[in-house]
């Protein structure tokens, strides 16, 4: 079971944002997307999550074209965490995370329990009754992460579940970056397919089963971190000289700039 984008092109107001991009997100695997600013990473996320209709190509979720699922069915299988949150109303953390249960009819007792567990998982139990508008950037991001986790907390009968994260760690300190990667890994072990856009190449190398490098709206390279992360590629894509070492413990490639 997969989430599949087949030969996608996206033109918006005269710009080619994506050109012939194909990507396969497998359930139970972590797919990390890296690339320079404006390379088309977020555009791809918008296309595979059904927010933008591709100009060419097709997207499917669990063997069915994406738009053949109803919005509610889709929401039960696919949770999306965007890069920027617009929320400026004083919901408590409990209420924000509770919004993640909207697609499910599990009853308020079960939902309350899931909300508490999701907040605990992202180390935000102490925020439960605090107002979202008064939280720090990192706290807000953790609460939003808990919201999308609550959305796919239980397996779904319709098919495999997927989680799309757009730079989920941008406001996190070291310990919460690690926590996020651990959560992502656990989800994948549970069978969830995770797509994560991330800027830190070393974080990407640590968490990804499958690494996709974007550049100028096309896929530059795809494969395991070991196959993809080379000095030539980083020079070509990011125009930065680097040395690739091996992480002393995890043996994953380590990018030193």
């Amino acid at each position, binding site marked *: 079971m997969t989430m599949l984008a087949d030969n996608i092109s996206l033109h918006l107001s005269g710009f080619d944002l994506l050109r012939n991009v194909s990507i396969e997100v497998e359930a139970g695997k972590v797919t990390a997307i890296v690339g320079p600013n404006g390379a088309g990473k977020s555009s791809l996320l918008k296309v595979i999550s059904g*927010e933008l209709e591709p100009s060419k190509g097709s997207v499917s979720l669990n063997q069915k074209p994406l738009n053949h699922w109803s919005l509610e*069915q889709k929401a039960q299988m696919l949770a999306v965490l965007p890069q920027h949150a*617009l929320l*400026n*109303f004083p919901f408590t953390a409990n209420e924000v995370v509770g919004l993640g249960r*909207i697609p499910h009819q599990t009853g308020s007792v079960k939902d309350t329990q899931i909300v508490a567990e999701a907040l605990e998982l992202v180390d935000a139990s102490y925020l439960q009754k605090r107002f979202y508008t008064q939280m720090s950037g990192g706290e807000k991001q953790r609460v939003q992460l808990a919201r999308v986790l609550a959305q796919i907390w239980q397996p779904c009968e319709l098919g495999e579940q997927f989680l799309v994260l757009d730079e989920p760690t941008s406001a996190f300190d070291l310990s919460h970056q690690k926590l996020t990667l651990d959560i992502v890994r656990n989800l994948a072990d549970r069978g969830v397919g995770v797509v994560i856009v991330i800027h830190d190449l070393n974080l990407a190398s640590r968490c990804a089963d499958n690494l996709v490098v974007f550049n100028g709206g096309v896929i530059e390279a795809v494969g395991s971190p070991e196959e993809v992360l080379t000095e030539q590629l980083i020079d070509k894509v990011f125009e930065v000289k680097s040395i690739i070492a091996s992480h002393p413990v995890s043996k994953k490639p380590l990018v030193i700039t």
Partner: protein
Amino acid sequence: MRRFSASGLILALAVLLPVVSLLSMTVGTVSISLGDLFAADNNQVNTILFDIRLPRILLAICVGAVLSSTGAVMQGLFRNPLADPSLIGVSSGASVGASLMIVTAGGFIHSGALLGLSLVALGAFVGGFVATLLVYRLATSGIGTSITTMLLAGIAIAAIAGALNSLLTYFSDNDMLRQISLWQMGNLSGASWTKVSIMAAVALLLMAQFPRDSRALNALLLGESEARHLGVDVQAVKRRLILLTALGVGVCVALAGLVGFVGLIIPHIVRLAIGPDHRWLIPASALAGATLLVFADSLARIVVIPAELPTGILTALLGAPFFVALLLQQRKQV
């Protein structure tokens, strides 16, 4: 900032509203004691109570409830706690409709009634509804309705309506001018059982429909695409809520003129008290708006006895200082 319990507030308002309404029955040019309220055998007193005051209070309850619940809905839809129902053009359109009727049909206003409603009321309703549809159409393209464009289109339509209104006032005589400005102040004094039935039917329709979209409105506060990812059919929700608001506010302004501030302030205050969850916010706002309007209208009847003030003056006079206090408090928090 601490929150009150939502169910507690709703319960308190549910008790307060009948009490205020009952007291309101006793006040006015003729003062009637609470005892006489139940034991009145005098025909004149009965007429005052059941043909004048009761319909007026019921109209105030319905208008207050509709204005503030639609206010809560619009603030959620626009993700802006300072939005109010007039943003979608309904009040400015209604204003033109009413003025047009006053100026062109000047002499027929009292005779030309349909279903017990004046031509002014019909003009206001049609004007408000047409303006809203125009704003909605301007902001809707193939990819859905843009809330930002709606805001801008609302401003543009309000500007055109303002100009038309000025034009109509320019060509009116003294009597018409007085009628136009009285209409714009908002007034419940013309209440009748016909008006109450129409208003109550609309209020009930809104109260029955809004709960269905409460959770969708909560999700919309996260952003439109987030709401879509939570399975909300954003476009359908928007269309439904805008139509219901246009209908509700349109009937309100048609029957009671422009009663200001209730739709803006009440949901804002209620949100500060119990938080933004629309499942509670909408019913609590409705009750609070109804209570405020009954209270304001009672005052309007007694402050300048034996005359009366237009209700809209009192809602603004009571509401605006409260609102300023809130703004000052918010400024302190930032």
